[in-house]
């Protein structure tokens, strides 16, 4: 019983880290200090109208709604290209969500999501791939998980013309052994 309460109080600060909500949840039993640090987990944002030329590296989440040219490597972070985002770069992250335009190779350790407004020119390499209807993809899609797991599972429907050809089964001479 006591342990449950302890866990709740410990979980408090983490939940209230998102901007704006921290102040709202301050009415609880425990007071949050006014100088509470903003979570490092809040996604960084390159908003509309901002242009970056060069290399972006890091390990946190990033939202791009502006223009980026060069290279983006986020390691374990998640990268979202917003609907106004235009990126001309090779992208590497844990998850990549494309809602805008991307021209470059996309590599995700986990998942690539291409939304209906997404326009991707370049190759995709990911563990999982989701494409919404209306999205544009011009490039190679390599999904490691599926391709290796099911490589030998390709058994198409029987050839249309040979469906009628039925080989007569050999009639057993006597009763079966089993």
């Amino acid at each position, binding site marked *: 019983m006591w342990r449950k309460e302890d866990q709740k109080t410990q979980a408090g600060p983490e939940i209230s880290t998102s901007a704006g909500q921290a102040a709202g949840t301050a009415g609880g039993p425990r007071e949050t200090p006014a100088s509470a640090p903003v979570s490092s987990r809040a996604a960084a944002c390159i908003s509309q109208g901002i242009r970056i030329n060069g290399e972006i590296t890091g390990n946190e989440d990033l939202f791009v709604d502006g223009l980026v040219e060069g290279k983006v490597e986020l390691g374990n972070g998640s990268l979202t290209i917003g609907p106004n985002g235009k990126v001309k770069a090779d992208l590497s992250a844990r998850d990549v969500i494309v809602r805008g335009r991307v021209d470059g190779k996309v590599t995700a350790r986990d998942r690539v999501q291409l939304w209906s407004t997404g326009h991707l020119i370049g190759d995709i390499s990911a563990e999982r791939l989701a*494409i919404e209807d209306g999205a544009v993809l011009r490039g190679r899609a390599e999904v490691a998980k599926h391709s290796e797991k099911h*490589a030998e599972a390709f058994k198409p429907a029987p*050839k249309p013309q040979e469906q009628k050809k039925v080989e007569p089964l050999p009639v057993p001479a006597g009763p079966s052994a089993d």
Partner: protein
Amino acid sequence: MSFFQKLRLVGVRNEPRGLPVGGRINPAGVVHAAANPARGPESRSQEATRVSNGLKEFLWNLEGLGRGTLLDLGAAWQTTLSFFIERGFRVTSDDLLRAWADFLAQEEARLKNARATGDALDMTSEARAERFMNANLRYSEGSFDAVLLWDVLDYLEPAAAKRVVASVTDCLRPGGVVFAMFHSRKPEAFQRYRVADSMHLQVLPAAVICPAQKIYQNREIQDLFIRYRTMKSFVGRDQLREVLFLK
């Protein structure tokens, strides 16, 4: 009407065809999709499924290929990509019709620019096809085992269609297979296709990207694909011929 307007109907949308829901077969041989509870009623009424002997034969030709390479020249659909990726294929998706539409928009801008500056721009269909191919389908020779061409050729200018077939033939390995579709008469609506399963295609009405340019007769199709060893046609009741070409 300028040639751009003839080639590209900007802003024209297909009206929903109002297909009835419930998996019945209409006289055209199209099996209408049964109700899918996961989707809204509007999308349910627009989707249709057709039996595809061409696809069946196409898959049969790919049997035993293992980790093959496939070039899909239609729209990028999750179902089509997953279908082949799950079977071990490395899929390259290249929406050629969208590329053609983008190219025409660029050509229009180029023409305006040329008029303004007084420069000469060769506007013959052959020159246009040349410029289109300079920026598209730049794949290395023999890099694919199979190509899904869908009904793309019907929507390209004949000169561009000829160049596309030549390019597809080059990037296909010997023994490779192409799955194409041709309309027997001018299509009433713009449709896109995706693989539903190994025997069925889903037919999806879509916004017009570019209008149909030419209806090919059998002889013309044979001439286009003259470098192929065999050609096999499957004529559907919905005025759509599925053709399989083996290189």
